């Protein structure tokens, strides 16, 4: 049986006037990614903040949902400030914070083994959770020494994995051993398999490492970063969202932002200012990774709301 072809993503500045009007009226809330949308590494996306100002003027609620726990909410707000944008702490969600939220929601009171950055760990500690980590030291090159570093009898009841620049095979081995306890849960933050860290520079993301844990332990991970459905459920509950299609997810990554939006039933807008090129978008075959709309950058939202569709725009 032939499958029904999915409509191709449309550029938001190439919509007919009718489509444009319907689109701008079709959502009340925006979940937006940050990296690759507002800025990437040292570069700011030109006029991105004007796009958000347009959203605000149109009365859309904007919340930032990032997979990046490496910088703190404070640092993030300062950077928004430097761009001339006022963002409140509660408008920013990242995996460390959503993980805290989740642990509190299940009234978690146990020992946690964590593979993450210092910033991530600081947030969990500040929230009162007890953490174990490591090994961080050099391991003598024999199995006895390895065993000393990875076997631990402490009653760990949650393993958390996010980005860790000093991640090692020994840390994954240790995590896997804790997961042999049936009561030990596995929580993943960011699950990006590839992380664009600079133009043309992609590194292996935490998702490829957490996959090792998922496969070796035979466990499902509770995913508190995009595209985790668990994250979506939490956000929708928090914002009391009853009609997911009235949410627009904006982001630059097919596998994280678009996939997350589609899983949650949101509308999706891909911006080409970050980790995905037009070519990559056009060659994407998986329907679950195809956005409803795309734009060169969030700056295009200004024209969208002004109603001036520029025909020559490609």
């Amino acid at each position, binding site marked *: 049986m032939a499958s029904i072809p999915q409509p191709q993503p449309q550029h938001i500045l190439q919509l007919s006037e009718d489509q444009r009007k319907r689109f701008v009226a079709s959502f009340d809330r925006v979940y937006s990614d940050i990296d690759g949308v507002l800025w990437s590494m040292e570069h700011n996306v030109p006029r991105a903040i004007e796009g958000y100002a347009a959203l605000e003027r149109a009365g859309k609620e904007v919340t930032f949902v990032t997979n990046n726990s490496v910088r703190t909410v404070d640092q993030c707000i300062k950077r928004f400030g430097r761009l001339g944008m006022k963002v409140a702490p509660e408008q920013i969600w990242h995996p460390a914070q959503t993980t805290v939220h989740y642990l509190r929601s299940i009234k978690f009171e146990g020992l946690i083994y964590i593979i993450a950055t210092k910033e991530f760990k600081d947030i969990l500690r500040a929230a009162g959770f007890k953490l174990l980590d490591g090994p961080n030291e050099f391991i003598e090159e024999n*199995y006895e020494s390895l065993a000393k570093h990875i076997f631990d009898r402490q009653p760990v009841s949650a393993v958390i994995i996010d980005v860790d620049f000093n991640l090692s095979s020994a840390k994954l081995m240790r995590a896997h051993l804790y997961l042999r306890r049936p009561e030990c849960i596995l929580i993943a933050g960011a699950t990006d398999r590839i992380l664009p860290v600079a133009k043309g520079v992609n590194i292996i993301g935490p998702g490829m490492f957490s996959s090792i844990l998922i496969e070796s332990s035979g466990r499902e991970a509770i995913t508190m970063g995009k595209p985790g459905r668990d994250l979506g459920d939490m956000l929708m509950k928090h914002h009391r969202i009853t009609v997911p299609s009235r949410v627009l997810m904006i982001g630059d990554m097919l596998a994280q932002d678009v996939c997350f939006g589609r899983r949650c039933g949101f509308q999706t807008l891909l911006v080409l200012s970050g980790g995905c090129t037009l070519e990559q978008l056009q060659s994407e075959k998986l329907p679950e990774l195809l956005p409803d709309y795309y734009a060169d950058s969030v700056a295009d939202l200004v024209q969208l709301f002004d109603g001036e569709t520029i025909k020559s725009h490609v």
Partner: protein
Amino acid sequence: MCEPKHIKELSKEERQKFFDSFDLVLCDCDGVVWHPFRDFIPGSARAIDQLQRLHRKKLTFVTNNSVSSLEEHLEKFAKQGQLNITKNQIVHPAQTICDHLKKIQFKGLIYCLATPPFRQLLIEAGFQLTQDSMSTGAKAIESVRDLHEAIYGGSAVQAVIIDVDFNLSAAKIMRAQVQLQNPECLFLAGAADARIPFGRGEIIGPGAFIDLVAKASGRQPLVLGKPGEALGQLMLQRHKATPAHRVLFVGDSLASDIAFGHANGYQTLLVMTAGKSEMEKRLKDMAKDHSEMPDYVVDCLGDLLIEQS
């Protein structure tokens, strides 16, 4: 009778038939001949001796352990087992990789993620290894800039080799992946166990990390340790005279020994030295045609002994 067959439960005739069904034994060492990195398992030295001298079987030991050198393996057989095993009876990932590099007349710089004895063997054979694959003195990575330096900082290499590296880090994995973007750069792997039997359970093995590099780089390594396809072909060349079904593969790992044996058409014998009850439970839950289902099981090699009058 339930599958797989326990050698001790075979009748006298069945036992005879079993011993008549193979000419060559390919045998793992750690967890089979001796406790991993420790003493011989009682009965295993006599069983090996009987296989060689009484049953007249050819024996080759196929280990994934390059933490111990080939010489250390020979010495252990001689001293602890009073067994006369020769160098060409041991197949060892550092050696198979070194032989391969010699065969293809490899010249160039190697990024080698493996233990010191493994690296030493390649260096002594005249190959050039980068220093940054060593972990001693490696600094903790504090920032994206540090990470960038660790991944992109070193020299370009012409081969990436991955075996057991006790200090394998994300940065090393990423450096390997970046080097493998060059299609001319060789990708070789030794021990590729997805899991390693350890204590009474299993730990994540080097295969999981090799697989990660393969997926991230879109390259398939030539795997010259168990359960590599290339090792299977190497065994085939070495033992041309013996048809695969006349080979018995003996090991303690379902994924690295039993599945490897089946993939090559050998008969398989699982040795349940560690965590017997857990292993029996796993076998009970396993589908009969599963690639990890052994043909035979024993508690230890000593179960193969025939009491001589």
